[in-house]
């Protein structure tokens, strides 16, 4: 169980109130944090990691106090056993891809695990390249698997899929979920991508400032613009350059258009989840 109750005056002219965060996260949960640019998401992760000192409050992880403003406890980051995917990546320029991983790994003999990480990110062929010779997306993949390499207890990811194309990002999302279940780490993922926000997650946290241009205390409230329905596919049929999928949801029959490729994967009697956020609609199969 992670309990966070902290306050930090972020020197921004946007809001006159400090960033206040109150959160409870169960061990092994997968939590997505989202919010507008500049609202304090990175700062929150940095405070959890111990890279930024809250002005006041307490961070408690599995009954261990990591930070307490009152009795000046501030556990060094080294002892927090984290994995951190930095928004600016922070790869080690002097090390190759493999050396980055080996440096990060607790147990360098765990070769098969590192190989697996390289495989799920399609990075096998780049193992002996230095970061400066990698493309933006390749660098981002390295940052993700470097954080995973040491099998952390808590994984903090700051917009880890932002430079990846849709397919690769989806692949990584799936692999991350598998590792998350397998290694049982707690995951805090900062993202603005609907594919993260609408995924199967344990908690969704929105960092948001009040309407009075104040940064409001944040909590476990689901987003206002997000919602989802579950239904059963009745029919899939072509229409112009696209396909239409008929889905029964309670008393309604929805008719949703989709691209040929997605349509191929849809068959009558399948259960699907339809999620929508901010004008975007996402179909995903269940089970």
């Amino acid at each position, binding site marked *: 169980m992670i309990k966070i109750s902290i306050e930090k005056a972020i020197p921004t002219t946007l809001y006159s109130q400090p960033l206040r965060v109150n959160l409870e996260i169960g061990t092994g949960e997968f939590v997505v944090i989202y919010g507008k640019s500049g609202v304090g998401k990175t700062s929150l992760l940095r405070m959890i990691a111990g890279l930024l000192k809250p002005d006041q409050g307490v961070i408690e992880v599995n009954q261990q106090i990591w930070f307490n403003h009152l009795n000046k406890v501030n556990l060094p980051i080294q002892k927090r056993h984290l*994995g951190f995917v930095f928004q*600016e990546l922070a790869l*080690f*320029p*002097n*090390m190759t891809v493999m050396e980055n991983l080996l440096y990060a790994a607790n147990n360098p003999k765990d070769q098969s695990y590192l190989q697996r990480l390289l495989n799920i990110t399609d990075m096998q062929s780049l193992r002996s390249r230095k970061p400066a010779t990698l493309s933006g997306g390749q660098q981002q993949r390295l940052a993700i698997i470097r954080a995973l390499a040491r099998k952390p207890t808590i994984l903090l990811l700051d917009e880890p899929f932002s430079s990846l194309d849709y397919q690769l990002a989806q692949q990584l999302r799936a692999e991350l979920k598998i590792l998350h279940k397998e290694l049982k780490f707690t995951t805090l993922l900062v993202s603005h991508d609907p594919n993260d926000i609408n995924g199967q997650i344990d908690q969704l946290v929105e960092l948001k400032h009040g309407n009075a241009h104040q940064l409001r205390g944040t909590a476990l409230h689901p987003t206002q613009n997000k919602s989802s329905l579950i239904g059963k596919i009745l029919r899939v049929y072509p229409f112009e350059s696209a396909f239409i999928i008929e889905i029964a949801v309670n008393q309604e029959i929805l008719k949703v258009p989709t691209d040929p490729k997605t349509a191929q994967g849809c068959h009558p009697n399948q259960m699907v989840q339809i999620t929508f956020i901010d004008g975007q609609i996402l179909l995903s199969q269940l089970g």
Partner: protein
Amino acid sequence: MDFNFQPLILSLELSLITTVLLLIIGIPIASFLAFKTFRGKSILEAIVSLPLVLPPSVLGFYLLVAFSPNNFFGKFLDSYFNLRLVFSFSGLVLGSLIYSLPFMIHPLQAGLQALAPNLKEASYSLGKSKKETMFKVLLPNIKPAILTGMVLTFAHTLGEFGVVLMIGGNLEGSTKVASIAIYDAVESLDFRSAHIYSLVLIIISFVILLITYGLNKRLFDNRVHL
């Protein structure tokens, strides 16, 4: 004419020892100055630079006085460690360490300060100690700065003269280094010896520098762009 290789070998030895020791001493000092902020930091930085300002022979004179067995420090070393720093190779080493300190500290500090702070953070986040972070992440990424510090220190100690002249005592085989030998030759109007010493010194140094720079170019290939 009066030329032999002993002074040259002695000079190379002195420079090598000084450079290695200063690298060991310099890294913690430079990282302290680069990363810590505290009141009076500028004062500490100014003190580190001071050995630069005093003319070497003057610095040598004060070291002579300090090391002299007449005075507290010299007496202390003599009676407790049986160590005499005047007219001995160890004294030259200590003198050179003091004299060349800023040449090592400055480049290292500037190099560390120029590093993106999140490299350090990333290493810490992986549970790595300060030491491991320093040696495996920070230092390997400031190779040009380390090279600068080492070249300046090595070459400067090789050419050092004022301090050595003062506290060395010109003893064959232990304190008569190349710079002194050349000076001696010039003073006694034995220009041929002076030319030969200088030439050999220059050639050796040139080769060492050449190798160093050549290696550096090969080693420092992190930021190759297509």
